[in-house]
């Protein structure tokens, strides 16, 4: 089976978030599972051309964009692990410092940029006659691909029989644009209705994927159910509910980079069998965050974007309470300025309890995962979440809100004393969060119980192998929908 994974960011070429990790790792895992997986993304300025020498793949393509045409090329390079990466090049659109916009806002022409990206892929497939059995699209930036496959390019030999899978990594980002951007896409106004690409008078690119893809998936079974409800649906719960028969959830695997036994970024290697290295990591982490001396109390770590989605508003609420507990909190992340400032304030106010690093730093992120005792993830919603999985692997017990992928990957140690791997709270409120933290602290006090919880977490297999196999099953479903045998 030949699969082309299209994404706006893919490790190791360009990354702003988990999407890049998932698409990068999935393509390599698929190769290992015997699937001929390639990937395609835009050629950003961030792509390291020394590491990845580019060669033009096929002729340049002319891409109609509204009333005019943009020319682009597709460059080819080796992504490692047998994966061939294609990079769509148009320097006007992609030779920029950032992927989607500066930290102050999105580029005003994002609709045009990703419309170009999708249409260039279609033109290129048509021109070169490259045939893939399945086109795996991810998030709104590639959501036009399934729509094109079923409309403007439905007669292209290379595309006609291709199944499409559309994966929602984060429903919160839908690619909402002005209605006057519709003609750019080349799709007719007849698709601009609530059953099509319209979303309260605006153009919603993600809907193109939701409506036209053969198979839909999201990154955890719980999230796939949650998004069919108004609470999590971001206004798309209706469309998703309508397509529930074709909607699946597959938990992301994690990268091999995240393995305490081999991780070069942490102070000492450790494993389930020999946890001694974790102590060095803990000391290293405390030092990194400016604390010296013996620290008995549990260390709670947190890494990630400082946004409301990650539960920062809840954290702001319980900040004072946390500072009053017998524990240490380390926070690494950047995001919305208000939360950045709120967290920085907390750190300044309680330097003995809370230490905050407003930054994005992969090295420190590894240190936090390895050196903390507890990992806190009070997300408002979480499609999959990776950090709680890293935590499990690194013997750091997660406290998570029971939502999305968090619900699927963490087992509450009080609800299931023999199988628990962490602590969960359901309601998005400070009381329940406080309760979960208290329960974790209580468990931490019971060393043997705590070790069992840690052990069970480290035992779990979150590698990409099983996830890749589940994706293969989805691809087969997509093919069957196209009337083809897998």
């Amino acid at each position: 089976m030949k699969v082309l994974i299209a994404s706006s960011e893919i490790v190791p070429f360009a990354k702003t978030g988990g999407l890049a990790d998932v698409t990068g790792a999935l393509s390599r895992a698929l190769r290992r599972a015997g699937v001929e997986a390639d990937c395609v993304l835009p050629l950003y300025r961030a792509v390291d051309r020394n590491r990845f020498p580019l060669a033009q793949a096929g002729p340049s393509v002319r891409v109609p964009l509204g009333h005019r045409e943009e020319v682009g090329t597709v460059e080819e390079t080796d992504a490692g692990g047998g994966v061939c990466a294609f990079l769509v090049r148009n320097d006007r659109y992609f030779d920029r410092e950032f992927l989607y916009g500066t930290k102050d806002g999105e580029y005003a022409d994002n609709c045009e940029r990703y419309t170009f990206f999708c249409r260039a892929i279609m033109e290129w497939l048509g021109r070169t006659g490259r045939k893939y059995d399945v086109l795996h699209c991810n998030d709104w930036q590639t959501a036009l691909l399934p729509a094109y496959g079923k409309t403007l390019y439905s007669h292209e030999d290379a595309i006609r029989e291709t199944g499409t899978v559309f994966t929602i990594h984060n429903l919160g980002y839908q690619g909402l644009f002005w209605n006057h951007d519709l003609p750019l896409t080349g799709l007719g106004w007849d698709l601009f209705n609530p059953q099509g690409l319209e979303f309260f008078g605006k153009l919603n690119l993600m809907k193109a994927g939701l409506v036209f893809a053969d198979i839909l998936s999201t990154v955890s079974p719980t999230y796939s159910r949650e998004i069919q409800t108004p609470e999590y649906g971001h206004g798309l719960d209706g469309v998703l509910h309508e397509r529930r028969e074709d909607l699946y959830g597959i938990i992301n695997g994690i990268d091999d980079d995240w393995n305490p036994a081999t991780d070069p970024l942490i102070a000492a290697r450790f494993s389930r069998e020999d946890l001694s290295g974790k102590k060095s990591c803990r000391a290293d982490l405390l030092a990194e965050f400016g604390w010296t001396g013996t620290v008995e109390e549990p260390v709670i770590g947190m890494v990630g974007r400082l946004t409301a989605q990650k539960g920062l508003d809840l954290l702001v609420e319980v900040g004072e309470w946390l500072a009053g507990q017998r524990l240490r909190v380390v926070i690494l992340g950047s995001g919305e300025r208000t939360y950045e400032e709120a967290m920085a304030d907390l750190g300044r106010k309680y330097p003995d309890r809370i230490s905050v690093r407003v930054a994005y730093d992969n090295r420190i992120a590894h240190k936090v995962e390895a050196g903390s005792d507890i990992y806190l993830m009070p997300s408002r919603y979480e499609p999959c979440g990776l950090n709680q999985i890293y935590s499990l692997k690194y013997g750091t017990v997660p406290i998570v809100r029971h939502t999305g992928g968090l619900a699927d990957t963490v087992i509450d140690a009080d609800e299931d004393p023999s199988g628990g791997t962490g602590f969960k709270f359901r309601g998005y409120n400070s009381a329940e969060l406080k309760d979960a933290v208290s329960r974790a602290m209580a468990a931490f006090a019971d060393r043997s119980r705590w070790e069992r919880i840690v052990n069970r977490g480290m035992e779990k297999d979150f590698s990409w192998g099983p996830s890749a196999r589940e994706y293969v099953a989805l691809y087969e479903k997509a093919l069957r929908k196209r009337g083809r045998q897998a």
Partner: protein
Amino acid sequence: MDIPPDKRFALLSRVVEISNSNILIENRLKYICDFLSRETGADRVCIHRRDHRGDDLLPWVSSCVQIDECKLFDFRIRSGEGVAGKAAQKRAPVYYPDVRSNPPFLPVSQELREFTTILSVPVMDDVYLYGVMNVSSVEPAEYSEETIQLLRGIATEVAGAIRNSRLYHDARKRVSELITLNEIGRAITSTFQVRDILAYVAKTTLRLLQADGCTVRLVGENRSTLKVMIDDGYSRPGLRRELRAHGKLLANQIFREKRPLLINGPEDSPMFVPLSRHGITSFLGLPIVSKGKSLGVISYYSGSSSSAFDMEVVNLMQTVCSQLANMIENSTMYLEAQHLAQANQVKVQQLSTLYDLARALMSTVKTERLLHIMLRSLTSATGLNFSRAILFLLSDEGPMLTGRMGMGPRDRKDAKRAGEGAAGKREGREAGAEDEELSGLLWPDIARVTVPLEGSGCLIARAVLEKRPVRTQSGCGNDAPPIQELFCGNHPKTFAAVPLVFKGEARGAIYVDNQFREREITDEDIRVLTMFASEACLAMENAMLYESLESALDNLRATQGRLVQSEKLAALGEMAAKIAHEIKNPLTVIGGFASRLARKGTGEEIDAQTSAKYNRIILKEVKRLERIIQQTLYFSREVVPALRGMDLDDEIREILSMFREELEEGRIVTDLDLSAGNPVISADPDQIRQVLWNLVSNSIQAMDSGGKLTLATRPATPEEGDGVVFLIGDTGGGIPHDVVHNIFNPFFTTKAKGTGLGLPIVHTIVEKHGGTIHLDNREGKGVTFSIFLPRVSKVAGAGERILDHMRKGGTDGGGVKNHP
């Protein structure tokens, strides 16, 4: 609060950097607000934008709240109100160091809030005011002139960013509209289906304009009232119904005035108020006008302020409307043309069916066969395709109609078989089998069906009485079938009857129905049926005429036969009389001289010399009798020439010597010109002698007062053939031209003593020898016969036929006509 001079440049350059970045305008403004708030220490920096429909200021982005949260601060600052309104009015910075103790003239509470110091800087370029930037702080703050100048510069930079953003925005919108317009244009020219296009245009423009509802009305057939063709949008339940009456009023106004109508406020139209009661704040209606004639109206309704229609939309939609108008006109013309073409085609089809049927009808003159063809034409799928047909004719026995012939299925089984037969026929079955099938569908007992003309109430009778077609879908009205269950009361409710009119007189009718089938009898069917009936009448008339002509001819033949017989007898009698007359004279002469000779011994002895003389006279007369008898006999037996080699010149000399006496008596000189080179010919000498004898004798008789007899021979020229030509000419005055064509007819004669057989015999003999006769007749002078005889005589045919005719007494007209 003041910005130290050393930081001013860095601050300004950062603002310029942000305002020129490629991110969304709100993001840029938000960043600038946040940045300024941080750098100046102000508690809030807020940019108000100017409402696009006036001078009111609306909060847009602010440093304290998220961009999308700014919408929640829903208040307006009118020009001149508050601090910002004053700055907008003055187009200059307005500075209130302490609004609490010294508030603006018209304070706006949402603007003041808990602030003490407010500095308002207009966001404007040299022409246009885009909004106002408020820098507010809770604690009292002071701004130096330099700082205010700096903020003014920043506001100008912001104005530039907003202007650029609007231009970019407008350009994209324009492009979007152009693309859509282009698409609509393409769609409009792609089809003639008006309704499809209207639906497409309504749907597309509705979404392009972000309208809440669109209705297209087109003028009806009567060219005066508008009819709703398309409704699109109206997603709020009941909205369409609520707007119907208002929409109709507005549409009629636009239709009349042929001008677009844009309503965005009560000043535009009194209709604004009633519309706004249904949540509609913007209305646009456009006429669809072609060549100065209104064809319809498109109306758009919008209930959201963000998608109020403006003049740009009007212009855009006018383009669409003019395209639509053309399309509708074209479509109307196309449909008319198509309609005409279809009607023509139907006509042609019918005419060609009728023509085929007429040809079939004319293919026979036999009545029985013709009726058969008629009924087949009526019931065949390639003909008029009725299910059943019955022919009724007026009875000879009284004022009633009698079934003459009926065809078609009597029951469902028959119908099924007929259907299969028709299908089989298409596969090319043999004609015989088909005929058999058809005769299976004939109604053998149809003659039993009789319908009284008067008083029966039967619709077929009515068709005959009124001489017009009758059609019904509700039966004939005769509930109880009183007469025959074979037909009456046994036919479907839907049937038709057309009269058969011969020369203005209805003599019967054709009944048709579609029993066992789902087919109506249409007006068109009746028309074609009527035409067929008149064709059928013609054919039937022809057949009857032919039949009467044939019997007349038979009569004539019998009469003629009888006539010929009697004429033959008459001719014979005449001939007998002529012969008797001919014989009588010689017999009298012979009798006279014989009785004188018989007186011997009675005393009146005659001498030997006288006796010899008498004997000679008697012999001569006997010879004459023999000749008469011989000639007469010529017609009673076949004379076949006995060909021998003979010399024509010898025969001529011989004949001349025979006539010497008569020539001398008649004072006729002879001119003999015999060619020496004549070939010997093969002929019957006796018959040739008779030819010569008859011709010379005729010539001598013609010259009763003397003249010249010319006799000549010569070899025939190559054109004439291989043989001899001889000429016999006289100076007897010729033959009158009015009788010359009769001279070779038997019994024609101009002489008192002739049998009229001489020349016919000549003619016959010459023909039998394969020769020809040429006649040179000069009236008043004489006649010359020139006769060609071939060297080797061919067995002739034409003459034989003539003789044949004569022997049989002549059945052709010639024999009758030529008899004098």
